[in-house]
C-alpha cells in the first residue's frame, strides 16, 4: 500500500479488506458445513418421528410427505401445524403433527403428536417449551415418563371428561407444584385428536407443496 494515500482512504481500504476476508472465510465454512447441518436437522426430526412411529410400519419418505395446515379454532394458535404422513404401500398409517399450544406456564409449548389411522395416539413428545425447570419440565421425556401416558389413548378412551388433569376431574396426573404445564399438554393433545377426527381425509389426502424444498 502506498504511503502517499490519504489516511482516510487507506483506513477504509484496510477495513474493506478485513470485511472481505471475513466474508470469504464465512462463505467457505458455510459451504463446507451446509450439507451436514441440513443432514443433522433432518436426522433430528426423523429420530423424533421414529421414536413414535417405528420405521418398519411405513415405507414412504416420511420427511418429504409433509404438509402445513392452519386452524386457529382447534389449535388456538396462529402458527402453522406441520404434518408428516406415514404410509405403507400408499396406505395411510399415521400422521405426525407438530402443534403449538399457548397455554404453557411460560408461553408456547411445542408438541409432536403421532396419531394412527384409527385415531389412537401413538405417542407424544415435547419438542420445545419454556416451563419452569424442576416444576413443569417433567413433561419432557428426559425428565419423566409422564408424556408416555398418552400412548394408546383416543377420543373414546378416556371419554370427553377424562381428557383433563386429575385436579380438573380428568384422568391425567398433574405434577407436584405444577398443574398448568400438564394441563396445557393434555388440552393440546385432546384438541389435536379432535382436529384429526374432523379432518382425517384432508390430513391424509392433501397434496404436499412440492415446489418448496423442505429441510
Amino acid at each position, binding site marked *: 500500500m502506498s504511503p502517499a494515500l490519504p*489516511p482516510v482512504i*487507506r*483506513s*477504509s481500504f*484496510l*477495513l474493506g479488506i*478485513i*470485511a472481505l*476476508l*471475513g*466474508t470469504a*472465510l*464465512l462463505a467457505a*465454512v*458455510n459451504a463446507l*458445513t451446509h450439507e*451436514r*447441518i441440513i443432514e*443433522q*436437522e433432518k*436426522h*433430528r426430526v426423523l429420530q423424533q418421528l421414529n421414536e413414535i412411529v417405528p420405521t418398519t410400519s411405513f415405507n414412504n419418505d416420511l420427511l418429504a410427505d409433509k404438509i402445513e395446515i392452519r386452524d386457529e379454532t382447534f389449535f388456538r394458535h396462529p402458527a402453522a401445524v406441520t404434518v408428516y404422513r406415514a404410509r405403507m404401500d400408499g396406505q395411510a398409517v399415521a400422521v405426525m403433527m407438530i402443534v403449538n399450544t399457548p397455554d404453557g406456564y411460560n408461553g408456547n409449548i411445542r408438541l409432536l403428536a403421532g396419531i394412527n389411522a384409527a385415531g389412537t395416539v401413538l405417542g407424544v413428545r415435547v419438542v420445545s417449551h419454556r416451563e*419452569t*425447570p*424442576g*416444576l413443569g419440565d417433567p413433561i419432557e421425556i428426559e425428565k419423566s415418563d409422564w408424556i408416555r401416558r398418552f400412548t394408546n389413548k383416543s377420543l373414546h378412551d378416556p371419554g370427553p371428561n377424562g381428557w383433563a388433569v386429575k385436579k380438573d376431574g380428568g384422568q391425567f396426573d398433574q405434577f407436584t407444584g405444577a398443574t398448568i404445564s400438564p394441563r396445557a399438554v393434555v388440552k393440546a393433545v385432546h384438541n389435536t385428536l379432535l382436529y384429526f377426527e374432523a379432518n382425517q381425509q384432508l390430513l391424509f389426502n392433501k397434496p404436499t407443496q412440492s415446489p418448496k424444498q423442505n429441510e
Partner: protein
Amino acid sequence: MSNSNLKQILADGAWRQNTGLVVLLGLCPLLAVTNTLINGLALGLATMLTLMVSNLSVSVMRKLLKPEIRIPAFVLIIASVVTVIELLMHAFFYDLFRVLGIFIPLIVTNCAIIGRAEAFASRNNPLASVVDGFATGLGFCITLVALGALRELTGHGTLLSGAAMLVGDWGQYLTLTLIPGHPGFLLAILPPGAFFCLALLIAARNALEANKAPLPKQPVTTPT
C-alpha cells in the same frame, strides 16, 4: 519473549485477572448457561477458542490497524470467528448447539474478548497474544465449569449430565449421581441461583487470596 513472561500472562489470565471472578466481564453468558457443568464447559471452550483466534488475528494485523478503524476491525474479526465456530458447532455438535443456542452468537458481545483484543493483542506479538487468549479463555472456562458444577450439584445432585452431547454416546456413562434421590433444588437452577453461586465463588477466591501472603499489586475486591 521469555518463558517467565508467558507464565506471567498465563497466571494473569487464568487467576489473577480472571474474567469471571475478578474483572467480572462477560457475565451474561456466564450466568445464563451454567445450569450444568457440561453447558459451562462447552461455552467456556467456545469462548476460549474465540479468544485465541481473535487475539492471533488482531496481533498479526496490529501494525496495520490504525486507531480510528481499530474497533470496527476488532468487531469484524471477532464476529467472523464466532460465526465460524457457530457453524462448526451446528454441523458437528448439534445437540450441544441446541442447548447453547443463542449464547454462541452472543460470544461476539462478550466484552472480555474485545477487551483482550484492545488491551493485549493490539500491543503484543502473536505468540504472546495467543497465550493471553488461551489464559483468559482458560480462566473464563474454569469459572464457567466451577459455577456449572456448583449449580448442577446443588440443583440436581449430579455432575457431568449431558456429557454425551460433547463426546458422543459413551458420555452418558460419565454422569455422576453424587446425591442419589436428590429432590432438586430449584433456586440453584434458576437465574437467581446463578448470582448466589457466583457470589460464593468470588468470596471463595477472595478468601483464598487473603490467606496468601499479600502481594503488592493485588487487585482484590474488598467486601463492603
